[in-house]
C-alpha cells in the first residue's frame, strides 16, 4: 500500500483543505483525508491534525475531538514513533489527548488574532529537520485560544529536554514580550513530545507554502514529511 499523508478531519475541522492543499498540491505527495470515525491508519506514514473548530470548540478547544475513534489510532501511531503534526486546533487536540503536555488557554487579549508573525526554530524534531535551529520563519496565526500553558515543572522539563520547538519572536529573532501574540508562557509557539516525532504548533505552516498568498516559509516545515514517505518528488 502506498505511503500517504493522512489529514485527520473532525466535525468542525476547517483547516483540513489547507493541509491537504499544502501536501497534495504544493508538495505533490499522496495525501488523503482521514475521517474521525476511522479506526486504523493503514498506509498512512504521516499524520496531520489540522486547524479548525472541532465540535465548535465548545467546552474547550479539542476537548471533544480527542475522544473521536480515530484518536486511538493516532495515539498508537505516535507511540510507534510515527510523525504527527498538530496545527492550531490540531495542537489543542494533541494536548487534550495528552500526546503533548500542557494546554492552550484563551489569548491574553481575549480576542481572536489573525496576522503574520515570526517564530524562531529552537530545537530539532522530525518536523524541523529541513530547517536549522535559529532560523526565523514568517507564518500566519489565526486563533483565539493559543496561549500555551504548563506548570513550572513541565515548562522546566520541556526547556531542559529541548522540547520547545518554536518560540514567537520579532523579525530579527528577538524574543520580546511584544512579539508574543497571545501570552504563551516563555513565548512558546510549538513543542514536541519526548520522541520528537509529535509536534504541535499554533502558527499555520500549511498556509504558507506559496509566495503568492503571503509567504512560503511554511513549506520548509511540511517538506519534512518527505523523509517519512520515501517518495521522490
Amino acid at each position, binding site marked *: 500500500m502506498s505511503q500517504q499523508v493522512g489529514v485527520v478531519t473532525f466535525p468542525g475541522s476547517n483547516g483540513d483543505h489547507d493541509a491537504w492543499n499544502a501536501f497534495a498540491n504544493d508538495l505533490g505527495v499522496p495525501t488523503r483525508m482521514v475521517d474521525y470515525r476511522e479506526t486504523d491508519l493503514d498506509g498512512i506514514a504521516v499524520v496531520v491534525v489540522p486547524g479548525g473548530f472541532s*465540535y*465548535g470548540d*465548545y*467546552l474547550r478547544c479539542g*476537548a*471533544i475531538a480527542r*475522544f*473521536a475513534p480515530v484518536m486511538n489510532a493516532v495515539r498508537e501511531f505516535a507511540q510507534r514513533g510515527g510523525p504527527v503534526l498538530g496545527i492550531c486546533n490540531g495542537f489543542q487536540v494533541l494536548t487534550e489527548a495528552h500526546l503533548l503536555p500542557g494546554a492552550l488557554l484563551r489569548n491574553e487579549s481575549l480576542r481572536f488574532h489573525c496576522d503574520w508573525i515570526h517564530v524562531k526554530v529552537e530545537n530539532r524534531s522530525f518536523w524541523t529537520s529541513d530547517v536549522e535551529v535559529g532560523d526565523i520563519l514568517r507564518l500566519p496565526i489565526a486563533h483565539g485560544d493559543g496561549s500555551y500553558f504548563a506548570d513550572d515543572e513541565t515548562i522546566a522539563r520541556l526547556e531542559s529536554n529541548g522540547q520547545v520547538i518554536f518560540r514567537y519572536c520579532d523579525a530579527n529573532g528577538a524574543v520580546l514580550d511584544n512579539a508574543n501574540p497571545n501570552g504563551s508562557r516563555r513565548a512558546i509557539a510549538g513543542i514536541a513530545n519526548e520522541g520528537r516525532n509529535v509536534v504541535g504548533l499554533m502558527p499555520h505552516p500549511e498556509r504558507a507554502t506559496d509566495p503568492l498568498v503571503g509567504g512560503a516559509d511554511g513549506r520548509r516545515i511540511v517538506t519534512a514529511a518527505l523523509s517519512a514517505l520515501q517518495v521522490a518528488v
Partner: protein
Amino acid sequence: MSNAWVAEVVVMPKAGVNDPQGEAILGGLHDLGYRAVSRVRAGKQFRVEIDAENEAAARNAIAEMSDRVLANPVIEVYEIESLTPLTGAGAER
C-alpha cells in the same frame, strides 16, 4: 469597618435561548457512551470578592453588577448562588 465577601454568581442561557455549547457537549457525551445524559446547558460561573459593610450591601452590589456586566439580560439569566464572608482559605480556592 468593612468586611470582605465572596459571591458565586451563575449565569445561564435564558429558557428558550439556543445553547449550541450545551448541545455540542451533549453530542460529545453521547458519542463517548454516556447515553443516559439527556440534556446539558452550559453557562458561566463567577467568583467575585468584594468589600462591603454588611451582607445586604454586598448582595446589592453583586446583583447590580450581575445585571450590568456579568450577565447579558437579553439572552442570559443570573443567580447569586452563594454569598459568604471571605475567609483566608476561601481566597485561595
